[in-house]
């Protein structure tokens, strides 16, 4: 067992980081906040770098990297608080298309001509049980009706991978729906760079990705697991940035003629923050490699990763803001981009409480009926 990055992986991560420092500066994020900029120029640069093709199989014209590399990209995008189009496309749409063997769409993803995302959540719930959106079959054609909320990068998606229930069998399947067949309502809210949208489908023509049958739940899990782990690591990336900014600030900010980082109470809090970030990173990497190697425990690791990311954002957003004092509270400082990114992640792809209750069920700690 080796949970440290290989030299090649470390190099790739460093490359993501340094490129994003150039092409996704805080000024670009600020434009998403203040000028409703969706980050199209960033997307074009990312396409030029071939990043959307990273996780696309070689058979479909992609680079065919494994999930660890996708996860590292997600982490660095979180560190940059980047507009979310690439995160959604690589960690949500791509796994869905891979699971569905949709090489045609994957080829479009690889060339950067298709952006998309997963539309699963309804009424803020990220479990298949809560899916009320319906998929109806007429001959060989499907239509989908329902409303999805909190759709990541829904504002820039060309294609949605939509979870919907076949009312005849009661099974949930996954369907590809073009943006032109959906009504997209932007919800910029707390973190406009997440490009969140509510998406309404009204008898929208849909292409079958995963048939609503007895296997569908397990197959959809193979999409939601990487999506969740990528989001978790994305949050941790944002948290690590908060940590580094706060640590740097504590080394220069003076109060009572002393650098505040020399106060022991703050030192201990920094030690705790460091633990929280390292702990969440280690669990997320463990989750990523488990998914990459298709380990039998992969069903558990997404819960571990997202729960740990939840603990991490809770402490880092709280102490990061608190220890910055009034400065962190101002709009003109960039800090809030990461605070908001870290906290927003908590309510996407299932809250940490939801993942913990799922884990309790897996561990046999819930009685029948406790759900």
């Amino acid at each position: 067992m080796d949970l440290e990055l290989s030299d090649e992986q470390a190099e790739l991560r460093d490359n993501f980081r340094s490129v994003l420092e150039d092409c996704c500066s805080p000024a670009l994020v600020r434009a998403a906040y203040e000028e409703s900029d969706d980050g199209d120029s960033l997307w074009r640069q990312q396409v030029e770098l071939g990043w959307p093709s990273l996780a696309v199989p070689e058979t479909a014209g992609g680079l065919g990297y494994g999930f660890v590399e996708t996860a590292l990209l997600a982490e660095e995008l979180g560190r940059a608080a980047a507009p979310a189009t690439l995160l959604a496309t690589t960690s949500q749409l791509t796994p869905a298309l891979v699971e569905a063997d949709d090489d045609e769409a994957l080829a479009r993803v690889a060339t950067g001509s298709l952006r998309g995302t997963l539309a699963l959540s309804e009424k803020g719930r990220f479990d298949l049980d809560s899916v009320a959106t319906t998929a109806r079959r007429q001959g060989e054609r499907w239509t989908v009706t329902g409303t999805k909320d909190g759709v990541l990068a829904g504002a820039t998606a060309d294609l949605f991978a939509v979870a919907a229930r076949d009312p005849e069998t009661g099974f949930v399947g996954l369907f590809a729906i073009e943006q032109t067949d959906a009504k997209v309502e932007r919800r910029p809210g707390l973190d406009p760079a997440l490009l969140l949208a509510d998406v309404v489908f009204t008898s929208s023509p849909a292409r079958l990705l995963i048939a609503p049958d007895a296997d569908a739940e397990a197959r959809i899990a193979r999409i939601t697991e990487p999506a969740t782990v990528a989001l978790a690591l994305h949050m941790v990336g944002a948290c690590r940035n908060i940590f580094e900014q706060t640590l740097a600030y504590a080394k220069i900010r003076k109060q009572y003629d002393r650098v505040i980082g020399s106060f022991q109470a703050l030192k201990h809090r920094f030690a705790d923050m460091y633990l929280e970030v390292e702990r969440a990173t280690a669990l997320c990497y463990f989750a990523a490699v488990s998914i990459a190697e298709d380990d039998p425990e992969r069903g558990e690791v997404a819960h571990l990763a997202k729960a740990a990311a939840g603990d991490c954002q809770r402490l880092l957003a709280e102490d990061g803001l608190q220890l910055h004092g009034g400065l962190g509270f101002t709009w003109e400082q960039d800090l809030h981009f990461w605070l908001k990114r870290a906290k927003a992640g908590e309510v996407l792809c299932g809250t940490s409480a939801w993942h913990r209750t799922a884990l309790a069920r897996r561990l046999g700690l819930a009685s029948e009926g406790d759900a």
Partner: protein
Amino acid sequence: MKLQFDDATLAFRDEFLAWLEKNRPAAEEMETDPAVSSAHAPDWARRWARRMFDAGWLVPGWAPELGGRNAGAVETLVYLEALTEAGVPRTTNPQGLGIISPSILDYGRPDQVEEFAMPVLRGELTACLGMSEPDAGSDLANLKTAAVRDGDEWVLNGQKVWTSGAAYADFCFLFCRTDPDARKHRGISIILVPMDTPGLEVKPLKEIVHPDTPDLAEVFLDDVRVPIENLVGEENDGWRMANGSLAHERSMVWLDSVLAIERSMAGLLDHAKAWMPALTPAERALAADDVVRLYIETKALRALGYRGFARFVKGGNAPEQALMKAYSSETSRDLARIASEWNGTDALHTTSGRSNRRRAIGGIEGYFNTFGSTISAGSSEIQRNIIAERVLGLPRE
């Protein structure tokens, strides 16, 4: 120990409630024309202040000529609770009413009382408090804004930051350094500075939440000239007065926090009942427990506050005050956090407008908003130092 107030106190409350019922501002006018800053007084707020002042309900503990009726501490407590229960703000300029006017009454000359303190009480003027500076933070001893005497004027230069309401206030109660050679706490004075004085510039500071209605501001002073007689109290005596100013009404400050948290708690209970049906039974139990823990904190805050208040009334020491600042602001933050965590993707929504700030519950935005209290007016870290050193007698480092 007793739970109930005595008959005289209850009679006092009834009298106030009856008056309040007849004289309170209407919910509609408060809604239509909200105060958008802590030194903004819409018309209804000015009329309301004047009505309170004239009827002796503005500061019940003071003499009638200052808008009071010489009420006792317990009566004041009951009065404040009644106002909150009625959903009526006592003032839209809390620093003016709670800190600045009382300080001028204590340390100012009669003409300053007439020109600055009384108009604030009657709702004619609003005031802001100029303390924090970029490099001083909570540490008044590092104050740098300088006032130099030039003939019959003070010439002020420097910068203030985190000044609540500066964009709306009529004058500033400004702390500045009048003796550059005196060390630290010495050499600080207080000067009254009309906000329209040439050379004074206010730059609103947008916050990370509700950037559309900033209340905080930076105040830049570039050769700002005010008459020599605008000095409050003695020259270089600002440190002592600051401790006096900030201590004003301290025995009651806990009540505002407790009442605010109780309001939030009531909101959270309603909100929680709305989430519950969508949750699984296991999540429901966890959510309920989170809410119950906060309910316990709410009750504990009130119990602690009342114990401290009882000691204060008996003339004793009330170490609960330092505790209450850190504890209430952190409880308020935790409450907002829990409310957002169980709210699903709705937690990402934002509201706009200052008047909605306090009402909104369940948003991450509301959670961030609570850091105003854990950071300002002595951060939670400073409160813990105070408790450890002054209350528990642990040695300074």
